[in-house]
């Protein structure tokens, strides 16, 4: 099977392109402030901003802990896990990046948690116990990217079918070669 034809998509670090401006609105500033105070409990956590979203980078071992903290602490109250995204940075050592977008319906905060995973063992603890909505998102990540979730072994395929080989979400998975023209 031929590789995809567009080779100009490569790792983002190589390209010398402008980087987006970062700005936070009022509520984001607040969140940033209070998050900074409490983040020190979690060793290795870094706080940053991407465009208008407060982002916390954290080690995968700390994930469930910080999630529980963020959900159950009164001043954060992230009661709603919006989305779990996997990004495959193909050429990095820390190849996969899991991004959890959290939203607090009650307090109208929004933030993201990032976890980087090595390519050889992309395993991350499951947050199903914290938010039930993680269920299918995690299964999807497992389907498409081959991410393993601690505590959720032998996940049956969700989007793909039994017997599908490979992880089509990954960058290395080729596009279908359609030869009609």
């Amino acid at each position: 099977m031929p590789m995809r034809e567009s080779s100009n998509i490569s790792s983002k670090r190589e390209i010398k392109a402008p980087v987006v401006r970062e700005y936070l609105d009022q509520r984001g500033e607040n969140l940033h402030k209070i998050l900074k105070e409490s983040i020190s409990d979690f060793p290795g956590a870094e706080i940053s901003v991407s465009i208008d979203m407060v982002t916390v980078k954290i080690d995968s071992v700390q994930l469930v802990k910080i999630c529980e903290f963020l959900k159950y602490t009164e001043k954060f109250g992230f009661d709603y896990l919006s989305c779990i995204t996997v990004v495959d940075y193909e050429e990095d050592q820390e190849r996969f990046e899991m991004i959890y977008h959290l939203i607090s319906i009650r307090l109208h905060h929004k933030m993201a948690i990032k976890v980087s995973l090595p390519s050889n063992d992309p395993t991350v603890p499951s947050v199903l116990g914290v938010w039930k909505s993680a269920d299918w998102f995690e299964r999807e990540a497992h389907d498409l990217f081959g991410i393993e979730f601690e505590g959720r072994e032998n996940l049956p395929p969700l989007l793909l079918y039994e017997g599908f080989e490979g992880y089509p979400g990954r960058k290395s998975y080729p596009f279908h070669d359609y030869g009609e023209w």
Partner: protein
Amino acid sequence: MEIDENTNIHIPKYDGFLPAEKPLGDGYKAGKGNNPADSVFNRVLPNALTAKSDQLFALARKSSLWTLSFGLACCAIEMISAHASHHDLDRFGVVTWPSPRQADVMIVAGTVVKKMADPIKLLYEQMPDPKWVIAMGSCATNGGPYYKSYSVVMGVDHLIPVDVYVPGCPPRPEALIYGVMQLQEKIKNDANQSFEKESLNANEGEQ
């Protein structure tokens, strides 16, 4: 895929997902699945008689195309629109039935993904003869916008024989109605040619 020697029709083997690699661009030959003239009546009686009656039956068949209500994706919405008040496929005698057993036409409206390949084949097989297939939309014709996708079947004719292809994404209801009318035309023409066809088939069988 196997060709049954006795009946000379394709019987898709029902095992596993996609069939083996087929050359793109030509799926099944249409018309294999829908030869309506294959009945005791036609086998016993002389062709001169059956050809006439076939034409009558074809008139009935073409005026009463019941579809399997089977929407896959976006095109399904336009298919429903075609049934709705403004376009009203019912005028042509086209109504939907939930079970394949009562259907004559399968309108494959939408993207056929590999996971769905099996059910589609199965449902097609479960329809009673004579049966027809309309591939609605570019996805069902040849993959359409998803031609690069790893999980889309590039045209439903890789799975089942298709009689009419309706292009568009989605085809507007009128286009679908036009497709139905083309199918009616086809049914009529097939019956008109059934005399010749029959004799051809007989010859083939002897060889």
